[in-house]
């Protein structure tokens, strides 16, 4: 139990440390790529990723640094991509909103909201068509969950009984718009999803253990071949919608103190200490992770820019 929890903690801490270092760099130097930070939502990415095997596939959205890293995406390639460098995972062409590392089956992320939902359905279709044992996960926010294509896809994936898991990261906001400004009275995600014959579960997205438990239940269900599922994780985004600045004016439930009190990383840390791991061991681990991240960022800062001619490459294969 220890070992798995410690492993999860390290991954969550890695994501947070990376985002924090990138945010610091952003504030000092301005990163010329639109950046949406994942800070606060780490338990969701890691909890879901820990319920998957390496050959299961994952797709993400505009806020996908955490998804990518949780799936094992290469840190240096990500940092280089954010800084528009040649060694970036998309050779500088995509930037922060376009994460990809196919070596770990992170299939791609795109910022057109819910665009990846039918794409993930297609990835799951391939898995089913060739009778593979794997499943596909797509991450989307509560905002993206309002796009019509989500419902077309739930029906389609249900019709074909595809191994598709949609993880809805409900951080209560679409930019600064609260759910109450965007949802009909009586709107109920569970009823909607179940109305398509899909399986629905809701997890505390600020609690790694709850996420991994429910994600694991759903991935087992999906491997049984009964069709799509939705895992809604209620969580808090700690930073502004885009860029690291904290705008507190629109917050309601997720005020600064509440975010701090419910923070998934602090919580898991407390649990680890209670289970007998020493404060010193954890602190040492954290320091190592931070130093690693600093090195990766320094590497990316020093890395060369792409050559001008590459503007014209890659349009076609």
């Amino acid at each position, binding site marked *: 139990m220890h070992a798995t929890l410690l492993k999860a903690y390290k991954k969550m801490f890695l994501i947070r440390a990376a985002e924090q270092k990138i945010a610091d760099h952003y504030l000092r130097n301005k*990163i*010329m*790529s*639109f950046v949406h930070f994942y800070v606060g939502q780490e338990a969701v990415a890691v909890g879901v990723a820990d319920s998957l095997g390496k050959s299961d596939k994952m797709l993400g959205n505009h806020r996908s640094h955490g998804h990518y890293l949780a799936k094992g995406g290469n840190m240096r390639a990500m940092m280089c991509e954010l800084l*528009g*460098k040649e060694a*970036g995972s998309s050779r*500088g*062409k*995509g*930037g*922060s*909103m*376009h994460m990809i590392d196919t070596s770990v089956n992170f299939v791609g992320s*795109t*910022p*057109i*909201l*819910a665009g990846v939902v039918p794409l993930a359905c297609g990835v799951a279709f391939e898995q089913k068509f060739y009778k593979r044992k794997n499943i596909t996960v797509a991450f989307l926010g509560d*905002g*993206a969950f*309002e*796009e*019509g*294509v989500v419902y077309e896809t739930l029906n389609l994936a249900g019709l074909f009984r595809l191994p598709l898991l949609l993880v809805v990261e409900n951080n209560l906001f*679409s*930019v*600064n*718009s609260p759910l109450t*400004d*965007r*949802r009909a009275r009586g709107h109920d995600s569970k009823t909607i999803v179940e109305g398509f014959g899909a399986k629905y579960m809701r997890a505390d997205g600020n609690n790694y253990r709850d996420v991994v438990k429910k994600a694991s239940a759903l991935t087992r269900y999906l491997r049984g071949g009964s069709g799509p599922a939705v895992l809604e994780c209620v969580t808090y985004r700690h930073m502004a919608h885009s860029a690291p600045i904290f705008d507190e004016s629109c917050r309601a439930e997720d005020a600064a103190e509440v975010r701090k009190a419910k923070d998934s990383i602090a919580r898991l840390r407390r649990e680890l200490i209670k289970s007998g791991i020493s404060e010193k061991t954890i602190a040492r681990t954290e320091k190592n992770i931070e130093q690693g991240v600093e090195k990766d960022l320094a590497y990316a800062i020093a890395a060369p*820019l*792409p050559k*001008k001619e*590459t*503007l*014209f490459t890659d*349009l076609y294969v």
Partner: protein
Amino acid sequence: MSERILKYTEALREATDQVMAQDSSVCVFGLGVTYKNGADGTTGGLKQKYPTRVFDTPVSEHAVTGMAVGSAISGMRPIVHHGRVEFSLLAADQMFTQAAKWNYMFGGNHPVPIVIRIAVGRQWGNGPQHTQSLYGMFGSVSGLKVVIPSSPRMAKGLLIAAVRDPNPVVILEPRWLYALKQHVPEGIYVENLGKAQVVQSGKDITLVSYGDGLVSAREALSIIGEKASVELIDLVSINPVDHETVIASVSKTKRLMVVDTTHASFGIGSEIIAGAAKAGVLSSAPVHLSCPDVPCPTSTALTEDYYPTKVIIATTILKAMGKAPIEQTLSFEELHLAPSITLP
């Protein structure tokens, strides 16, 4: 009295405020339009002033745009805002196939007085899925009126004209121009939706552009100074295209150059060149500056050469006139950050 200088975004806001005050059937729909700095500042404060007529919406472009089209069919005058052209594409059916065809396919007398405001084009760090312009696509749809405001003054006048027009009007707003400043008249006024404007008259060459390209072209002319006499035309409308104004100018200058801030293929420039060629008014090969036929990437190392700059425009004009090019290097800010200059 000191001049009223407004930013492009403030001019759009003022136009919206004034048409809302005049016509109680004008409503505003869009993501975040109720925020303090809503729709990049173009709707800020309107919710407070018109609490029942400004609506933040779910992330449901297709349904929201369709709802607005439906309300327009019933006689309301909705303004829909899409923060990027890619988001508006989720509502392509409602814009291109429903609103644009409604009056024609029902044999007339079925107006659809909707305005769809769409931010388009270049912005640092936004990459292939957030910076398309797709001008040619909007220009090709019969039944839409499509304009591209190139300055704060045009932005205000065109938006007011669009709201008053009984047809579906799409306003493609180059995000690159949002910080531009200019004197903007205080009262309500309209700019002609379907008409190009001669910004500066000249006799050696006709230079046609629109939106952000027009702003670079203006700057190019100040670099050139007296070295060439350039007639600069702001196309303003790409649906319909005002070929008449361009042809009249080229008949005089005999030379044509166009500046696109989108791809050369199926861009706007090729349409202008075709019009002049068909009219037989050219005495030399037309010159076409544009973005390359690849998506706009994210890394600034790659976007540096993507858009035609004022220096390239100036040099190309001088070359067309058989004169020596100018040498000038642009700073990182000039290349990558939106201009906040004040236009005359």
